[in-house]
């Protein structure tokens, strides 16, 4: 793999990046920060009804060799 050494490209991208957040992942819930016990399960539970399925999604993915639950159903 060879990365770009084009400095103008980086300058331009950095300017774009300065105007936005670039992070990706699951959506936060404002409740999570104040619930330390939820931290271990938060990656799986955010956006779902609290108290159900904690940790289940990630565990399922691990067992199935990374078949995210969204892949087929949502492609229509």
């Amino acid at each position, binding site marked *: 793999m060879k*990365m770009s050494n084009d400095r103008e*490209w*980086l300058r331009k991208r950095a300017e774009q990046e300065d*105007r936005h*957040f*670039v*992070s990706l992942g699951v959506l936060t819930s404002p409740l999570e920060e104040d619930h330390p016990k939820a931290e271990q399960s938060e990656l799986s539970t955010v956006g779902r009804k609290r108290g159900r399925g904690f940790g289940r999604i990630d565990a399922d993915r691990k067992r199935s060799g*990374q078949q995210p639950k969204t892949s087929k159903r*949502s*492609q229509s």
Partner: protein
Amino acid sequence: VRLPVELLDNATGEFVEAELFDEITVEHFLETKRTWRPLVLQARRKLLARGREDLVPNYAHWDWTTKEPLLQMLAMKFFGIECGGKLQGIVEIQMVGYECRVPTQRGRDLVYVDYLQVAPWNVRLLMDALGKPTQFRGVGSRLFEAIVRFSLDEGFKGRVGLHSLPSSEAFYTRECGMTAAGRDRAKQNLLWCEFTPEQAQTFLTGGAR
């Protein structure tokens, strides 16, 4: 993989040498928890106190240490960037489980970006909230470049897919030029964004919009 890459030093405006690598360990995850997370939460509190909920990032709750088991999985890959002895950004991608949704590419394999985070001291919107300057610029772009180049190297022809957080949608669609292919109800209604091979090339060669 260990490759030299350049970043921009915000204090001097000069280019500085950093290192892109894929040998992520649990120590890197712990580093994010120890040094990144408090700063993100601090900025979040400041923004909320000022009534700027619109600027609060959607990732204040993340904990990379929960991802330790994924380090062993062949279908997963992590890249990080280090500079000045500190982790400046990290990304998790996966090579199975997702397919293209854009009509011209539908059903083809792609590289899926699961998580990407830049150290908070490199995020202008956060550091502005804290009244401090950013340290390095271009970290997220370098990570995203690495994903696209990895996609090319691994035969995915530059195809990349991701579910964008609301706070990042403008970056991936407007600035990077990805196609927004609808919201995914099965994934928190996040926006599905995708690079076709042509768009990936445009991103790498300079054009964005």
